[in-house]
């Protein structure tokens, strides 16, 4: 790697870097700053010439309990989804990283990761087909069981949780797998040769060493779920009102953009707090 010495090298560096970062500036960082600005306005300048500056949008969040209740509901949803993702994903990652070797491991790992990269909207939609009343799942269960079962899962909170766990599970398995794969097998063999039980190995070696990966995965699930709106809309029906859907409404149905900007910005603040709290662990997970 070269230190920058000549003006020509400085120019080359600038030419290579500036297009990408200018693009990010215009498309991400300026919009985020603009949103903060608009969250303090009474009206959008393009709609009303007599717009003014106000704290009213934030006061609305503080005085109207609907918003804080929904934010709490979204946070609770994120906790639930994250919990199930880790609970379900950990054994998977462990088996993949430590019990399966060679080509079949590569193939299985790819199979677990692949759905994550397919369209999330379509995957949520596929659950709508499976879970709907008298749908495929109910029929399958009733075909096996002798008595009649009505699940009534569609348009419930459970349906939203199932869809979101399905969406984000591969993420957790990916980070956990990478963390567990890095654990030295000799360490496990040494512990076993000294008489450690499987539970002790899990508790004293695997869990502590994979903790950064676990937390990284948890954050990567938690953050997008707090801001989810499409999944609750499709699978939650009337139960599917969350903080994210209220923000969506401000922009596409109610057209109160300044309030929407304020609500978005509060969500961003929550996300930043979570990311900042997790950042020491996330840094460790990277290395």
């Amino acid at each position, binding site marked *: 790697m070269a230190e920058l010495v000549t003006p020509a090298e400085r120019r080359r560096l600038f030419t290579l870097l500036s297009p990408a970062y200018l693009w990010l500036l215009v498309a991400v960082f300026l919009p985020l700053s603009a949103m903060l600005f608009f969250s303090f306005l009474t009206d959008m300048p393009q709609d009303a010439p007599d717009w003014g500056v106000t704290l009213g949008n934030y006061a609305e969040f503080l005085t109207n309990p609907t918003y804080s209740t929904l934010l709490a509901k979204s946070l609770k949803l994120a906790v639930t989804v994250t919990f199930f993702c880790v609970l379900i994903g950990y054994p998977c990652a462990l088996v993949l990283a430590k019990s399966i070797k060679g080509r079949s491991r590569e193939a299985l790992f790819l199979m677990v990761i692949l759905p994550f990269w397919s369209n999330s909207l379509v995957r949520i*939609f596929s659950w709508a087909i499976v879970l709907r009343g008298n749908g495929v799942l109910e029929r399958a269960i009733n075909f096996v069981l002798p008595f009649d079962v009505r699940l009534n899962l569609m348009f419930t909170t459970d349906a939203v949780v199932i869809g979101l766990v399905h969406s984000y599970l591969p993420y957790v398995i990916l980070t956990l797998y990478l963390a567990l794969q890095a654990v030295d097998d000799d360490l496990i063999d040494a512990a076993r040769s000294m008489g450690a039980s499987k539970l002790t190995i899990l508790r004293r070696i695997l869990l502590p060493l994979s903790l950064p990966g676990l937390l990284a995965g948890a954050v990567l699930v938690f953050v997008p779920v707090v801001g989810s709106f499409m999944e609750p809309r499709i699978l939650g029906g009337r139960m599917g009102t969350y903080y994210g859907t209220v923000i969506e409404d401000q922009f596409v149905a109610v057209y109160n953009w300044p309030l929407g900007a304020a609500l978005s910005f509060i969500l961003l603040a929550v996300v930043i707090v979570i990311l900042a709290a997790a950042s020491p662990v996330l840094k460790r997970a990277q290395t």
Partner: protein
Amino acid sequence: MTRSPLVLLGKIWLALILVFLYAPILVMAAMSFNASPFYQLPFQFSTDWYAKMAGNQQIITAAIRSVLIACGTTVIATCLGTAASVALFRYEFRGKRILQVLLFPPIAIPWLITGTAMLVFFFAIGIGRGTPAVVIGHVALALPYVIVTVSARLSSFDVTLEEAARSMGANAWTVLSRVTLPWIAPGIVAGALFAFAVSFDQFVVSYFLSEPGDSTLPVLIYTAIRKGFTPEINAISTIIVTVSMAVMFLAARFSKFGGSR
């Protein structure tokens, strides 16, 4: 590791998880070939819904728009991202660490926030909604993926190769085109495929930035689902899943993504 009941149990668990991950998609695909519009069983094979879909001008227009936007995004994001990766790899300079950290927000901040912020800002500066706005947004989301993928490939690049070429009289351009670029080519291809997938599958940002009646495929599907869906949507969704999984499968083959190293 030894064969034990616990390991067997773990493998069964893994198999169940794979069923959980794939079953709904397979059910959807199966129902797109079922004659009954209400997903009635017994299953009767039919390709009617695909014929209906092919005749639906709205779906076809949205599909073409989605592919064009994804191609445009891929070209722009791959060029800009590769240039930035080379610069980040080659030079040491103050502020480099900050530039690397700045790649994180577009990935980490929920798309709902990024999307609404783009909408507000683009209206304020006069771009408004529409295909240009969607492309600007998609490129920004795809850039970090391209830079991370290409940088990962570059990190295994031996700089002494460039020095050797230079010492034998190659100029900067020759070094780049004959030594550096051929080495990172697999990384660039993987990055481009990631960019395509990010754009083609993107729903949230497209949803806020596209003009009503002028939407991409995922936005059209979302609107259709909320109105009450038809098996035509099944058919197009099945095609989308197949395409995006194929693209990602290729990307995984080109990058060393996971597996034993």
